[in-house]
């Protein structure tokens, strides 16, 4: 890991990090982010995450990056999953049970169709 010795070092890391994101976006990769703050976990986010990972493995889906993040703030709608396909705007889904996670993966991530009735206004 590089030691940051100056502002230039920081700028370099920032540029590299942003570039990585750009590559992911233009390669058409899908990013699926699960909010795993304590409130998300209390609402069942771990099961949601598990369902997502299991579905990806079982259906042999590729090109999907699954990450986690902290609390998004809309705790009433936990568990929350955000999907970003390529360069399209991020879509935030609420109350994502394991069953709905599978639906979102199949219809949005693979099929390209946003599951409108599960979306939370960003």
């Amino acid at each position, binding site marked *: 890991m590089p030691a940051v010795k100056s502002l230039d070092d920081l700028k370099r890391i920032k540029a590299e990090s942003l570039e990585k994101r750009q590559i992911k976006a233009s390669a058409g990769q899908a990013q699926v982010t699960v909010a795993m703050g*304590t*409130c998300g*976990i209390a*609402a*069942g986010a771990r099961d949601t995450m598990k369902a997502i990972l299991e579905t990806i493995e079982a259906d042999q889906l590729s090109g999907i990056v699954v990450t986690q993040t902290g609390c998004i703030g809309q705790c009433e709608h936990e568990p929350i999953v955000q999907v970003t396909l390529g360069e399209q705007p991020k879509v935030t889904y609420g109350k994502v049970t394991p069953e709905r996670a599978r639906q979102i993966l199949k219809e949005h991530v693979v099929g390209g169709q946003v599951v409108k009735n599960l979306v939370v206004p960003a």
Partner: protein
Amino acid sequence: MTVAVKNGKDAMQVVRTAVVHHGATRDELIPILTDINHELGYIPHEAVDEVSRLIGMPKSQLYSVASFYDMLSLKPRGRHVIKFCENAPCHVVGGRQVWQALHDALHVKPGETTPDGRFTLLTTSCIGVCAVGPVVVIDDDVHGNVEPEQVAEILARYE
């Protein structure tokens, strides 16, 4: 001499590990006691004696600190510790009914352990997940949006 402990762990070994890990100084007392409490389920008297000896602190002061903090217990606890959030935000969204359901299921008062040693029922202060209240914490699992009808199912998951 082994003490009646959770998971059959050797209390003295747990104490020594904790003291070595944090350092044998007074200011590390709370982290040390927290580790012991976590490993053994509570802090046995023998553990207090040993910590006192290793750090060089009078036992009375150790008891003074251990008895002050809510999350440290000097009494044995059940195999599973239930912590129910009893604060206003959870109360206002239906916490009272969930509390009643817990009582009905366990038949013990807060602070007590069920006769079969399975559950200890405690109240806890706010865990900070109020938007998904009512909240019940069992061991390290945080259960949110709990309804009275779900209490039996949730409890059944813990042996």
